[in-house]
């Protein structure tokens, strides 16, 4: 079956994609090129003195052991956010898909968090988990857990992962739900008649049929974890305690926006950009092969 749409007009297809290309050029390529340009420069905050320093900003970064450690932190964080985000929302979507009564209410409630700004999500969770006044802390203390993410790095990491995942679940949920609803019911019914239980039906029919959605969400979630989570971190741990939650994008934000170190910050965002490009290429080349469209 030919899935492609064939245009007769020579210019119409270009005209249709032009707005998208214009937006990409202005909001992605232009800043990206600027970041590359700034990353070779050393500048004071006000931009009064600019020197071309070649790769000095990069050399600085790679000499800094803490910056290198931040790669590991970022990897842990991203895998946790993407993994938890995808599996929890898949679970919720399969459950919501089966609900007959009040389905609308469930779905609306699950989609809601997506409308919340990252910083607000961060503050919300920080409140719930606040070391002395948080309600979750209170419950945890009752269970004998010494909850203090202000000083305990792994707990701080858990907190920012929870807050980031919570925000992304809605988005994933929407896609999974749409994916589930497009799976033909007769397929599942036939399997049920043949004696396949719910788990078997899920893993042999539903999950493979959802694989394009899952793959898409994997790419999007990794990008989200790498780029969009600095708001959550800034509102909660600010990278601490120590360097426990200092992921790459937060340091870009801190050094660039808060500390006005444009050269260093740009160099970091260039590195980050290459990592995400590499990851996306890997995902498309290797993981996509397992996807059945």
């Amino acid at each position, binding site marked *: 079956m030919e899935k492609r749409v064939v245009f007769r007009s020579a210019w119409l297809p270009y005209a249709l994609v032009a707005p998208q290309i214009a937006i990409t050029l202005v909001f992605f390529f232009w800043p990206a090129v600027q970041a590359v340009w700034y990353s070779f420069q*050393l*500048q*004071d*905050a*006000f*931009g*009064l*003195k600019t*020197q071309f*320093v070649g790769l000095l900003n990069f050399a*600085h970064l790679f000499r*800094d052991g*803490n910056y290198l450690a931040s790669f590991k932190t970022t990897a842990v964080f991203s895998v946790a956010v993407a993994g938890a985000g995808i599996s929890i929302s898949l679970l919720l979507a399969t459950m919501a898909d089966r609900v007959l009564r009040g389905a609308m209410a469930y779905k609306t409630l699950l989609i809601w968090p997506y409308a919340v700004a990252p910083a607000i999500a961060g503050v919300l969770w920080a409140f719930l988990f606040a070391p*002395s*006044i948080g309600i979750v802390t209170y419950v945890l203390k009752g269970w004998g857990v010494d909850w203090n993410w*202000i*000083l*305990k*790095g792994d707990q701080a990491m858990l907190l920012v992962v929870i807050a980031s995942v919570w925000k992304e679940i809605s988005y994933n949920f929407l896609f999974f739900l749409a994916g589930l609803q497009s799976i033909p019911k007769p397929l599942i019914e036939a399997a049920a008649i043949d004696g396949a239980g719910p788990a078997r039906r899920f893993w042999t029919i539903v999950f493979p049929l959802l694989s394009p959605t899952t793959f898409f969400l994997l790419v999007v979630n990794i990008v989200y974890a790498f780029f969009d989570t600095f708001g959550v971190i800034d509102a909660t741990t*600010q*990278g*601490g*305690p*120590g*360097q426990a939650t*200092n992921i790459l994008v937060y340091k870009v934000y*801190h*050094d660039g*926006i*808060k*500390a*006005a*170190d444009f*050269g*260093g910050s740009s160099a970091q965002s260039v590195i980050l950009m290459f990592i995400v490009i590499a990851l996306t290429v890997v995902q498309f080349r290797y993981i996509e092969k397992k996807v059945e469209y």
Partner: protein
Amino acid sequence: MKIKILAIALLTIGLTSTNAQAQTEIQWWHSMGGALGEALNGLANKFNASQKDYKVVATFKGSYPESMTAAIAAFRAGSGPNLLQVFEVGNATMMAAKGAIVPVATVMADAKEPFNPKAYLPTVTGYYSDVKGNLLSFPFNSSTVMFYINKDAFKKAGLDPNKAPKTWKEVLAAAEKLKASGQQCVYTTSWPSWMHIENFSAWHNVPIGTKQNGMGGLDTVFTINSPLHVRHIAMLGDMSKKGLFTYAGRTNQGDAKFSSGECAMFSGSAGAQAGIKKAAKFDWSINFIPYHDDVKGAPQNSIIGGASVWVMGGKKPAEYKGVAKFLAFLSQPEIQMEWHTGTGYVPITQASYELTRKSGFYDKNPGADMPVKQLTNKAPTENSKGLRFGNFVQGRTVIEEELEEVFAGKKDAKTALDDAVKRGNEILRQFEAANK
């Protein structure tokens, strides 16, 4: 009908704009939210009502780093305010930006406005002047770090509530007793780097960095891994392990832990008083910060925190005249007193301090003059007149990260402070290279 309305509208716009043209507007970007913002607007309004030629337009631009970032971005885009309120860690960045700023001393001299920097407390002028003693920015809201105790908790622990610990030895002794009496959180602090590194150094008359804490040149290096620093931070790490010190976070999170009664002792900004007064359901007192009594010369004097107002460059001459007039207006003792008593920031001129004392304000508000007494405890030395480190926003983060490693028991104090110095010096070298 519609045309008529349009005509009236256009006429009104025309009228208001000619009105505005007659007055020179002076844009002032600041970071004073809430009650502080109201007090600041009060000053601007008073100035606007006092004369007709200039109009100060005060705009709240968010937190200190936010308004500084906004001004930097605006400057890079070729605009920006006439006046910008900058917090103390931004000083070195502003000072190095020759061309982006105009020294206050120059502004006042050019406009022939009478202005005497000597009227200000030496700890204040020292902080905002260049090595030659020229005032670079206009001292505005200054505070310092103080030591607070919960008198009720002291009573409960069998301690004398009227005798706040003066030395760290006494703090430790009191801490043990408070802990034994069932106090959950014994001691906490806000602004860990400001209190336990920066003010700690000044209070014990030891340098934070070479070249007069960075005031003498960009080629400064941090010296916060001295034996005294290591000993102090190790003590805090030990207190943290024993449950005598509860770390609250990098900014003012400690304030709420004290005012809610959770913590019995607390070090935080003098500006925290207002919040404590409002929230605390217990008896408390404000005191000098503790010192190590075996250190010679301690206690010296504490250093200020807070912000000053910078005059930005590249504006019209008439606007600078207005700026000078406005700064002269702000320097009057009566205005200074209004700001001091209305906000809790320290009085920064000798005259306003005297005036406030004569008004009986300190009799009605015991302890309100403690901060200024602590700031002027002794004549400031090279180690205690302030600090000026390039990119100290990053530098402070580095220090705080390393302190957290100690408080969490992950690093010993010596390693952490060595690392803080090493990482901090990298930042200083980068700043030096960028501002040659």
